[in-house]
């Protein structure tokens, strides 16, 4: 089957296997009726460009998370090349000259189905995974107009140190309790000097309900609030 001395590449092995499965798959980018098989030896430039594009496509598909833009552009380019190589008049397929590796021929002839199958399966995988990862909204695709994308999906954020808003806030101590109550966007300048740029202290209040008779504590607390140097505060940025 192979020409003498031609190494059977692993990619081509995969393609051969996929080809067998893919024959039943609807070749969505072909003209209906007759599959586009080259009738004459393909134009050299188009052919090498075609091969290059197929390689790029396979390389892209093998990525764990392919760059969608790159993928779509390569696929569209491949379609253009293929369209230019396929003749408009349909004729019965001509056996290729024995010099051309038959594996490459199979690739050429069934590349459309292989590509469509690979592309389709990958993109289906992507959409299935999306369906899984957005478990609270499995019908995200069909949601009504102005779709809000709901809450926090199954927490994958175990490694996310800063966690989703609904994560365990108490781990951060009192500070964490008020993490989301951020009034900084609406900072009042009424009683805080502008140069300080501080938040007014409602979030600090509930945590510091000391007995009013401790005057020293009150003064210290007031200073703490003014400057923001509470015991629970994060240490200052160290710089790099």
């Amino acid at each position, binding site marked *: 089957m192979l020409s003498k001395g031609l190494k059977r590449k692993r990619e081509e092995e995969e393609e051969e296997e996929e080809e067998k499965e893919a024959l039943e798959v609807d070749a969505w980018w072909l003209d209906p009726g007759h599959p586009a098989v080259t009738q004459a030896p393909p134009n050299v430039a188009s052919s090498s460009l075609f091969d290059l594009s197929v390689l790029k496509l396979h390389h892209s598909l093998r990525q764990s998370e392919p760059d969608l833009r790159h993928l779509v552009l390569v696929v569209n380019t491949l379609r253009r090349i293929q369209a230019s190589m396929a003749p408009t008049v349909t004729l019965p397929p001509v056996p290729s000259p024995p010099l051309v590796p038959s594996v490459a021929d199979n690739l050429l002839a069934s590349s459309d189905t292989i590509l469509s199958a690979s592309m389709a399966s990958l993109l289906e995988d992507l959409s299935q995974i999306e369906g899984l990862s957005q478990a609270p909204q499995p019908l995200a695709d069909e949601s009504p107009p102005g779709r809000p994308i709901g809450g926090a999906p199954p927490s994958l954020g175990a490694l996310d140190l800063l966690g989703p808003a609904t994560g365990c806030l108490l781990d951060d101590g009192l500070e964490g309790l008020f993490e989301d109550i951020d009034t900084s966007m609406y*900072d009042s300048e009424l009683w805080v000097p502008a140069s300080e740029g501080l938040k007014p202290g409602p979030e600090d209040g509930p945590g510091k309900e000391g007995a009013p008779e401790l005057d020293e504590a009150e003064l210290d607390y007031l200073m703490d609030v003014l400057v923001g140097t509470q015991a629970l505060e994060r240490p200052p940025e160290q710089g790099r």
Partner: protein
Amino acid sequence: MPSHRMPSEADIISTVEFNHTGELLATGDKGGRVVIFQREPESKNAPHSQGEYDVYSTFQSHEPEFDYLKSLEIEEKINKIKWLPQQNAAHSLLSTNDKTIKLWKITERDKRPEGYNLKDEEGKLKDLSTVTSLQVPVLKPMDLMVEVSPRRIFANGHTYHINSISVNSDCETYMSADDLRINLWHLAVTDRSFNIVDIKPANMEDLTEVITASEFHPHHCNLFVYSSSKGSLRLCDMRAAALCDKHSKLFEEPEDPSSRSFFSEIISSVSDVKFSHSGRYMLTRDYLTVKVWDLNMEARPIETYQVHDYLRSKLCSLYENDCIFDKFECAWNGSDSVIMTGAYNNFFRMFDRNSKRDVTLEASRESSKPRAVLKPRRVCIGGKRRRDDISVDSLDFAKKILHTAWHPAENIIAIAATNNLYIFQDKVNSDMH
């Protein structure tokens, strides 16, 4: 950063952005770090350091994450940074990687209280029996300390890779766009976002186009634009419908039949879109050109500038080495009279819309000496060659200037050349040819 550290891939700058006054300049890199530069006020004592930018703060914005469901590592690379308009003494910015957007607050501290009653200098509690009198703590000046803290984490909003974020002129909302969807967020709400554009086809086999960039209109809070890999721009009005899948205007230039090739679609893919400061125009960058569009004319751009047309005959090689997929950004100057974009060989280009003159400049160590005047460069295709010309074949395609920014008011530009940042104060009126 220690001075002996060798430049690594993590140091590659991936985004550059001035804040609204131009006082601050933020850069993000592949290692997930953000570095903020601050312009020093001009001082009579040191006339030479006229408004130069020094490092103000550095922090780790994003860390690499692992998505267990998909068994994928999520890159920490900062794709975009956008500043929020300043509303108080603090500065805020949004930074995003492929999946998660974060709101960071930057504050300054230059005073420290001294003279606590209950604590000693180190902060340890005093023995109460030693406290005999009451004192009022006083604020004493200290060395300026810049503190950065994450105020919001906007996670789990995107299945695909985020390519752009844009703060709305209402200063309350912002949008984030990935390959197939655009979400609207409220800056104060992290557990919910509103999907406003979804171009994902029902059948993924039908996917032929992705979203490449998006931006809110600078003045009309209901308008935004997004660009596609097929070279089209869609202007959407959020007041027209809750779901903006249907555009209000579609900007598309018909393909020129004379220059049609296999790569026509790839080179027409828009890599960046920017509204002019006036809000009347849009600037787009595709592989070979920058185009100015009038919002009132959908049929074609009003101006087209060739960035590096000498590459048109090399598209096949550039497709082979994947350079044809490089995404260059573009920028307006403050008065919308000059536009700028990067190219290869550390070249960047500026086009004066009024005089129609253009210039090619290089961001290199030779030109980075203080107060050195940048020399215009020229790429020669063939024929007569001047002494300092560069031939097309000797262009270094590894040296690409993808990210550039222009000060909102002055002629100061920031150019990211791989892992180096260049800040030029460019006299626009001279050096044009």
